[in-house]
């Protein structure tokens, strides 16, 4: 991932009301970075998808929101991490319409489309880290 991180906020994701709080905080960050309304909606929606994945599939985890700078452009970076079962087949999970037992559905692939950069690190039995960035 490109860019330098300037400031961050950490949020726990332990139950479904945490996911609501994640949406609210990500909205505040995206707004303060002066993203357009449509971009803000995309960012918060992606956060909602990935937050839910972290909770439902990962058994709970955390989110780090960061403001990041790469040369001139500014961006928002969201890093979702959990110590859950991991994802066995990432390519399959990214393909639309795929729904695992826990129902990831469009979440992973959709988030990738809503953001500019997408990175996923996962290992079975150890957990998953999904990092997404949207540049202004």
């Amino acid at each position: 991932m490109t860019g330098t991180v300037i400031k961050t906020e950490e949020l726990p994701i332990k139950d479904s009301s945490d996911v609501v709080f994640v949406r609210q905080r990500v909205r505040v960050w995206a707004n303060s970075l002066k993203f357009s309304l449509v971009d803000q909606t995309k960012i918060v929606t992606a956060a909602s998808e990935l937050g839910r994945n972290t909770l439902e599939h990962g058994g709970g985890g955390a989110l780090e929101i960061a403001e990041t700078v790469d040369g001139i452009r500014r961006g928002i970076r969201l890093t979702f991490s959990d110590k859950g079962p991991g994802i066995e087949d990432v390519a399959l999970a990214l393909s639309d319409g795929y729904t695992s037992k826990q129902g990831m559905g469009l979440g992973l692939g959709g988030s990738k489309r809503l953001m500019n950069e997408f990175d996923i690190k996962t290992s079975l039995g150890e957990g998953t880290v999904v990092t997404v960035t949207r540049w202004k």
Partner: protein
Amino acid sequence: MERIPILRMGNFLLVTIQVDMHDKLALTLQDDLTAKIADVGAKGVLIDISSLEIVDSFIGRTLANIASMAKVLDAETVVVGMQPAVAITLVELGMSLPGIRTALNVESGMNYLQDTVVAYESSEGYDGDSDQN
């Protein structure tokens, strides 16, 4: 326990979603609506989402589920007032919600329901008699 209120207007049920729903609340709404449709024999459901600034895949699926369940219970569903930014995002997410009827606002949504239900009633030789309440 918080619930989203369901209003009744004659044959129709009206729901206005104004809060940022967490998943449990959405599922509760799904249950409550289905129960109420069956309970009062509603013919139409209008869901107003004009206040929703975020509709993710879970909420999208919930809306689709509500529409399907309502259909099975012989009721039409119309979702009204989706904001442009939300619509653009849903499309980008990959959800086009094909089975759901939509309208610009509550007024046109109600017009649609009234037309649809009336059309149904006149085409099926409905005699206007109802055993329910």
